[in-house]
């Protein structure tokens, strides 16, 4: 078989394959739910009502989407420049560690100064963490996929060490858990009485910010140019390696904000289960969004809804919650395939 580019794809050609991809991943999930003894209509009904069926459910979905917007943005920024950052999980924890180290009493600042300072420092630390693999890539040609993946394991062990050693809460009854943030370091709630914190607002601002960088700045143009064809970009006078390093700082910083916002907005302290894989799920979010920053918001809400919905479905119907992960993994694979089909015709010969 052979792929042939299509010059002017019709509207059907551009819309139908992605729609079919999502539909197929739902069908796969329905089939698996049946194997587990569930009724697929009931299972999907429970997922939807669990995700958006009540005020509590909607707030839970928005809260769950917050870290996913950050990691999704981190991945889409990196992937656009073909910097394969699979280490968002480590960068997320870096942001959380910085927040906890400085926010539990080390700094005595009022809230209006403390919260932005912590966010900025988290961004810098997360960026530096990704800078190491990025430098290994630009200087020595070491593939960043493997180094960023291995960094996840190293950094999680480091966090485990911190939580059992220097950062361990003396009042924590022996649990590996950090002390709680001082109240000046906490992200306030958007509306009093509603369980939704300003991390969500910050995530929306970040998405718009990245969209502006992408669309209106030289850096945005350079990042896309490097991603599309590094050779051509170099030929056109774009400093490819510095652009990759800037991309790394930006991507690592965005992922670190996820950790900052989870600690300062939601949890108030750091434990080893802060992230159930938000760094990896960010890849799915970014791909479903076609690497578009505003699309990331929509994709993160969709993914968060499925996770939150699947949790409550699992409690009610007894179908394992991993159904959500399967749905998203198959949606990821089918979407990349669908996007190819919108642009190419498959020829047999």
């Amino acid at each position, binding site marked *: 078989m052979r792929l042939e580019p299509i010059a002017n794809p019709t509207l059907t050609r551009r819309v139908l394959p992605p729609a079919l991809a999502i539909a197929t991943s739902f069908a796969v999930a329905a089939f698996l739910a049946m194997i587990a003894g569930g009724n697929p209509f009931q299972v999907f009904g429970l997922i939807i009502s669990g995700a958006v069926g009540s005020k509590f459910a909607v707030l839970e979905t928005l809260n769950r989407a917050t870290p996913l917007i950050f990691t999704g943005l981190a991945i889409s920024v990196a992937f656009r420049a073909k910097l394969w950052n699979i280490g968002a999980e480590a960068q997320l924890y870096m942001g959380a560690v910085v927040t906890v180290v400085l926010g539990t009493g080390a700094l005595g600042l009022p809230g209006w100064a403390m919260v932005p300072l912590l966010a900025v420092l988290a961004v810098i630390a997360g960026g530096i963490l990704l800078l190491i693999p990025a430098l290994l890539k630009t200087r020595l040609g070491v593939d960043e996929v493997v180094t960023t993946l291995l960094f996840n394991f190293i950094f999680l062990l480091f966090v485990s060490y911190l939580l059992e050693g220097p950062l361990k809460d003396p009042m924590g009854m022996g649990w590996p858990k950090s002390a709680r943030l001082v109240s000046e370091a906490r992200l306030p709630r958007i509306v009093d009485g509603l369980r939704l914190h300003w991390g969500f607002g910050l995530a929306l601002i970040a998405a718009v910010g990245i969209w502006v960088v992408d669309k209106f700045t030289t850096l945005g143009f350079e990042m896309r140019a490097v991603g599309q064809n590094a050779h051509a970009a170099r030929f056109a006078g774009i400093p490819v390696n510095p652009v990759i390093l800037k991309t790394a700082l930006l991507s690592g910083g965005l992922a670190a904000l996820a950790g900052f916002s989870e600690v300062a907005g939601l949890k108030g302290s750091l434990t080893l289960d802060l992230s159930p894989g938000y760094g990896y799920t960010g890849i799915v979010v970014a791909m479903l969004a076609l690497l578009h920053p505003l699309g990331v918001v929509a994709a993160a809400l969709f993914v968060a809804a499925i996770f939150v919905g699947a949790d409550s479905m699992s409690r009610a119907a007894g179908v394992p919650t*991993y159904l959500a992960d399967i749905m998203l993994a198959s949606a990821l694979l089918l979407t990349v395939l669908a996007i190819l089909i919108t642009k190419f015709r498959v020829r047999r*010969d």
Partner: protein
Amino acid sequence: MDILEILLSASFWAAAIRIASPLIFATMGELICERAGVLNLGIEGIMVAGAFAGWIAVWAGLPLWGGVAIAMIAGMGFGALHGVLSVLFGLSQHVVGVGITLLATSLTFYTYRVALPEVSTPPKIEAFKVLEIPLLSDIPIIGQALFAQTPLTYLAFGLTAALAWILYRTPLGLAVRAVGESPASVAAQGLSVAAIRMGAVIFGSGLMAVGGAFLTMSAFDSFFFDMVNGRGWICIALVVFGAWRPGKALLGAILFAAFDAFQIRLQQTGIGVHVPYQIFLMMPYILSILALVLMSRRAEVPAALMVPFNKGER
């Protein structure tokens, strides 16, 4: 126990070879894929799936070798999916690989929960037993290390030798290496690049799954969720460290495993008391990164690695 004493003990080297065995299977699997030009990042998930498939098959009543076969088939299934997306459709090998890992892992965990809904600890199986080879196993130190292992370990070593022979001494091996270096010239010979790459990815993925199955059927006798724990990613580093050659990759795996066995023993010595255990656990991952950095200068990367081939395109 001091350091020299550890290095001279037979049990240390026996442990090193045991730890190396799953890595050897998976590293050889990845090596075949990459030699044919396909980076297979599905390795981590495929190992998880293989570990589970082999174990559950034996638990359901199949003989041990039947379990190995089931693991292999499961791995080949995910390999086929990887191949269709990355070879036939030429999609990004990074994205497809990560997707396969997510899919294989979540499918495995889902199946586990569906198959064993009510258990708190996973059931044990009767795993492969040590098969001592007469006379040879009596050689001091290396006898116990090399000739008192489970059958799967012997298979791992035999496989490496066979693979090296096939890659460098047979037309099939030449074809596999050629599609990874210069697919256009293979196509010019009238061979199908897609078919050779598909074959390599499917077979290689099968081996990765057997590597996973080693964990549940030989190293341990049960399945745990975080069992594979990054071993797949380490194998990708081992392929680079071994400069895409089976023999060197085998030595790399043994060296790596010896280091791993060493750090486990070091934790129990006087040094281990003063150093947090997390530092020891980090070592394998740090070592993998160091290996990548060291080898980067003289990398002999297959020229067409990660380059999709579309017939009729220059």
